[in-house]
């Protein structure tokens, strides 16, 4: 998996997306992150590992709290890729519109 690929895979899960949203407001401990979800701390911990491997979060050194922090760089890369794809495709459909016009009214 390349970097972009692992970012997409990490973001594929709704719980992980919610964790990212929460962390965008500031750092939080695994316990705090688990609170809104009806799942175990262990399950949250698995999600955090996936996010950490994808480079989307970093964990603090403090062994007791292990606070999680958002690392926004991969998100920006993904957003750039999607924006570029959207722009290229919009341009392409503009050209399609023009072609359809020409096909209807041959000049």
């Amino acid at each position, binding site marked *: *998996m*390349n970097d*972009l*690929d692992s*970012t*997409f*895979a990490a*973001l*594929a*899960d*709704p719980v992980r*997306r919610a964790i*990212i*949203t929460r962390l*965008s407001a500031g750092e939080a401990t695994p316990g705090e992150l688990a609170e809104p979800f009806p799942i175990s701390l262990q399950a949250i911990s698995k999600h955090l590992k996936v996010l950490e491997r994808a480079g989307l979060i970093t964990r603090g050194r403090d062994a007791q709290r292990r606070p999680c922090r958002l690392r926004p760089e991969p*998100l920006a890369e*993904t*957003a750039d*890729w*999607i924006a570029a*794809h*959207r722009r290229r*495709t*919009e*341009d*392409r*459909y503009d*050209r*399609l*519109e*023009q*072609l*359809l*016009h020409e*096909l*209807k009214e041959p000049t």
Partner: protein
Amino acid sequence: VSEQEVSFDRIFDAAPALVFRAFTEPDLVARWWAEKDETLEVEVLEPRAGGSWRFVNTGNDGSDVFSGVYHAVSADRIVQTFEYSGFPGIVLLETLTFDDLGDGRTRFTDTSVFPAAAAGTYGGGGGANESMDRLEALLKTL
């Protein structure tokens, strides 16, 4: 957080049959797919379920390859994958629809989903997990 879907929605002043042709006939595809200063070579275009497509887009900076596989093709809908050589391994699942507005116009939509996102939605279902369990069991015996 980062969206996992990109969609496009257009009204074309042409009947659905003509829009469909513009997607499925190589001569027509070549006239709109590439940018004005680029050339498009339609290497493969097999618009039927299981068929594939492969375009080589050449511009000043070199060539890019776009390719995919058709999963469903009918007069009002095409489902296909979309890959770009610049980002190998990222496969979009693209659904194109051609709706007849009845006045010579077509409402066209393109919904592209990143399969990682799709995996997230069905990954929680029992069926997919059971299959994965069986695959895992099989792999242990090999």
